[in-house]
């Protein structure tokens, strides 16, 4: 009897957790998709990466739902998913397996100085800059997302801004 009660409870909890993750998906999908777009390259399959982010959440619902800030947790996963995608792309390019960029992509990259400048920043600085300046996350939220102390967030942001400005001036 106890076992069946536990099973029902587990199913009920899971259904509840699924519902809550779904709410988070509807609430943050656009923001996370935009962040992924900013952290990757033009032409990247952002929808696929967005699904990867929420697959992580679905496989570990307790982690996201009990996080201090579920939003920061999701954006943290998004930065890691984007980083993984860039790494895979670099490996594919290394072995000559990368897709050839279309002329449209090339034109977009040259036109968009910010996009180009962002690619020149280190991963850590770029993540902080994008989350703060473009996504509007607070310092503590970014600290939770990228897993570093708050002061480190401000340091990275300071250097990221300086490097971005220098890069924009060079190409602007």
């Amino acid at each position, binding site marked *: 009897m106890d076992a069946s009660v536990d099973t029902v409870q587990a199913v009920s909890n899971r259904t509840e957790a*699924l519902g809550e993750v*779904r709410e988070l*998906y*509807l609430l943050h*999908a*656009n*923001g996370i*998709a*935009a962040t992924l*777009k*900013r952290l990757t390259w033009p032409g990247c399959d*952002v*929808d696929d990466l967005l*699904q990867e982010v*929420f*697959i992580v959440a*679905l*496989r570990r619902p307790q982690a996201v739902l009990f996080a201090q800030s579920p939003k920061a947790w999701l954006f943290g996963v998004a930065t890691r998913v984007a980083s993984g995608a860039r790494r895979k792309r670099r490996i594919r390019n290394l072995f000559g397996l990368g897709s050839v960029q279309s002329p449209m992509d090339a034109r977009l990259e040259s036109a*968009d*100085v*910010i*996009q180009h400048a962002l690619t020149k920043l280190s991963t850590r600085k770029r993540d902080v800059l994008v989350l703060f*300046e*473009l996504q509007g996350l607070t*310092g503590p939220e970014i600290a939770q997302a990228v897993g570093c102390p708050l002061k480190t967030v*401000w340091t990275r*942001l*300071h250097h990221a*801004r300086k490097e*971005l*400005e220098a890069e*924009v001036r060079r190409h*602007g």
Partner: protein
Amino acid sequence: MAEELAPEVKASLEQFAARTAVDRPTAHHERTWGLLLERSRRPRRARWFALGAIAAVTAALLIAVRVPAEPVRASTGARWQQHDDVVQLSLGQLRLQPRDHVRVVTPHLEVDLYNARALVDVTDGQTVLAAEEGEIVYRTARGEWHLKAGERVVISGAPDAVSVAAPVKIATCGDGDAACLSRVAQGSGLAAEMALYKLGVAARERGSLDEAVRLLREYRARFPVGTFAPEASVALMLTLQSAGEPVAAAAEADDFVTRFPREPRVSKVRAWRTQLLEVVP
């Protein structure tokens, strides 16, 4: 908190933000939620694929770096020669592990090895053949015989009157099992050599120097070109020194240098002998 961005950079950033913004209606996400759920329930094939790939690469590397064993290894002082896949052995011991086929001819028998590992030991008047791995075929004047892994045969006497001993399992004794070692030492081949040598060393270690000298001299008499002949000689000279017989020990050292001139320990034995005679009155 950090300072603000320069206005022109901020403007560019806002333009970039507007360009990269995603503003899909909630209905779109509700539609894709089902796909997302379905995808999350699929097994993680990528992980298994990666593990499989790592296992395959590791196995390939292990196979690639495996150094093939030397097909024919002879004991010190063995008299043998090889022409193509035929090895003539007249005295001493050969350990054989051919990659393909090899035929060993001794005064008492002929052995054909195919993908097998065997030990052939020829002493005055007998040949010991031990199969270590695989199955081997040997021929004597009395016919053709098979030997399985773990069995050995002793063929003695003149080629026209060979006596074939029944196959005997190769004995394995613990180092401290003196009764087992004594029993094996009475036999022949590598097992007997090893047992006799171990008995001699054990006797020396427990202080029975006379018994150690007797056993090591017996080893030398029975297996002059045995696998442990150099070790037995060194053990004998040290035992003689301990027994207060430096002259006999020096003679054994001289004998060692003559019998095993290519032994790596020759220079040490020479130096030891010089020191030994310096202290002799």
